[in-house]
């Protein structure tokens, strides 16, 4: 077990390293680099060269990568090109806002999808199942940004109930009630595709477990349907559910980019979009490292949990 954990940890670090190499290489393939955006302002060539030198962009790409990696290992994510602040400060300022939004959406999606998935699995191929499963297809097909615009049209434009953008009302001291009012629509938008994915997955997972021999045994010894569902089925169905929840994290981040743009939510997703536009490479790299690290860590934890609870995996 100890050796397995160590080897998996090494693999995770190598994976993260590869991610940064690919991203860094891609970014520096760009003709002109970040100064191409600044070049739009028609600066003299000498001044452009000076800017490139200041940013270290005149060095060969592998050298630049080495410098970047060395800084990163020492906890330095670099300086943002656009507003000359440390990248870590930029991200640190935006990350909590994204966590509030994505966390709310994620938890809401889980709380709603678990009972829905269990219900549809227990009543598979009935009318109610067809309706809910059919609706989950539509949930997967809704473009999040458009759903956001529609909610704005209904709740802000037509009903004047909710604010259409931002996190707090300007010129007012921030309050929890105000935050919740601003949070409601973007969280709903972000939760929808996850709600659909989770519901489908919970349903499939529960159905698969319900066909297992030990469930038949439990039924044969006379246990009630509810007891079987919660004590035998759900416990085993939860393991693959945890995996898919972890795997969905990058999708939540992608959704956050779009949702935050629609609702003017000052989060990390919006920061990523802005940074890609302005070619603010240190910010792009910083966000890449953080998100990739989170994805890799979650996968690692899920795999290790598997090993810890399922002896069959350990034997392999």
């Amino acid at each position: 077990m100890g050796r397995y954990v160590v080897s998996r940890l090494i693999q995770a670090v190598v994976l993260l390293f590869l991610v940064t190499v690919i991203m860094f290489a891609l970014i520096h393939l760009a003709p002109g680099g970040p100064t191409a955006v600044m070049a739009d302002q028609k600066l003299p060539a000498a001044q452009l060269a000076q800017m490139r030198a200041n940013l270290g962009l005149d060095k060969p790409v592998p050298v630049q990568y080495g410098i970047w990696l060395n800084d990163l290992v020492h906890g330095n994510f670099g300086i943002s090109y656009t507003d000359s602040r440390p990248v870590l400060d930029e991200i640190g300022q935006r990350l909590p806002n994204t966590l509030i939004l994505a966390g709310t959406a994620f938890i809401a999606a889980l709380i709603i999808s678990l009972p829905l998935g269990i219900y549809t699995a227990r009543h598979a191929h009935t009318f109610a199942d067809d309706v809910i499963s059919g609706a989950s297809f539509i949930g997967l097909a809704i473009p999040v940004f458009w759903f956001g615009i529609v909610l704005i049209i209904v709740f802000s434009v037509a009903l004047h109930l909710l604010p259409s953008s931002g996190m707090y009302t300007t010129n007012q001291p921030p309050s929890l009630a105000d935050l919740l009012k601003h949070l409601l629509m973007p969280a709903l938008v972000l939760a929808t595709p996850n709600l659909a994915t989770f519901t489908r997955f919970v349903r499939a997972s529960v159905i698969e477990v319900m066909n297992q021999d030990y469930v038949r045994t439990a039924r044969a010894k006379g246990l009630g349907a509810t007891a079987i569902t919660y004590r035998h089925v759900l416990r085993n169905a939860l393991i693959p559910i945890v995996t898919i929840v972890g795997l969905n994290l990058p999708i939540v981040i992608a959704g956050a980019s779009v949702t935050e743009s629609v609702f003017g939510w000052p989060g990390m997703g919006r920061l990523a979009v802005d940074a890609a536009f302005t070619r603010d490479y240190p910010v792009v790299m910083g966000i890449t490292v953080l998100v990739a690290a989170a994805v890799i860590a979650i996968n690692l934890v899920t795999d290790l949990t598997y090993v810890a609870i399922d002896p069959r995996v350990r034997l392999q």
Partner: protein
Amino acid sequence: MTATPTRVLSAEVTLAREQRGPLQQFLARLLRYRPGIVSLGVLVFLYMLAFVVPHLLPYSPDSLDLTNMLSGPNWQHLLGTDENGRDVLARLLYGGQISLTVGIFAVLIADTVGVLLGAVAGYFGKISDTLIMRITDTMLAIPGFLLLLVILSLFSPSLGKIELAIGLTSWMTVSRLVRGEILRYKDAEFVQAAKAMGASDWRIIFRHLLPQTVSPVVVASSVLIGAAIILESALSYLGLGIQPPQASWGNMLTGAQNFVWTEPALAIYPGVLILITVSAFNYFGEGLRSAFNVTE
């Protein structure tokens, strides 16, 4: 006494059923899933709308009518005009050409990459397997949408580049799927027979193994097409996809969002069309899944 003719009859029915070829059985199963067939009809209708009807319209999607901005529906412009006085119906139809092709070509690229990598990894194993699966894991760990944003911000986006970018960032499910299927069959008797007859590795892969992977890949592709359409529209909405003045359902929403307070209808149309298109691909994929008998 009466039992005998019934038995003969049922035997005949069984015989008739067995005589139907695999293709007919497949079609019969496909037809049984109603939403899938309805979706196919919807898709055919949408393709006609996007590729045939625009030639019959009096307006080009880019012609400006500056005296008639945000006109609202009328007999001249059935769905009204947008903020630049362009005919909304014409733009929706031309925009449809983007959404209805981007998904298919992006997924063809993803399938090509995924099938080749998955086949090599599964069949040859060893170093090639380790290497390819590491690349797959790496691509899965990179936040895909961020990668797309970066790629498209580097190169001035065009339809071809968007298809390429989406294709090259979404082949990982396919490669894993194909690798798994090939591992399942590579020691099967029909492969051993082919080997004994002196077939080369590539002949075994292309003639004997890849045909086994067709149904799961097709089913996965229909879901990927829907996802690719949504990705393109999101990128276009953010300004990193199809560039104005060319119309796409995604970038029409960018313009329309500024006018939700006065002309909310403009923001409704493109999204409804995306929703219908993607749902149709998903439902049709579900039909294919049951017709191919593929389980997840």
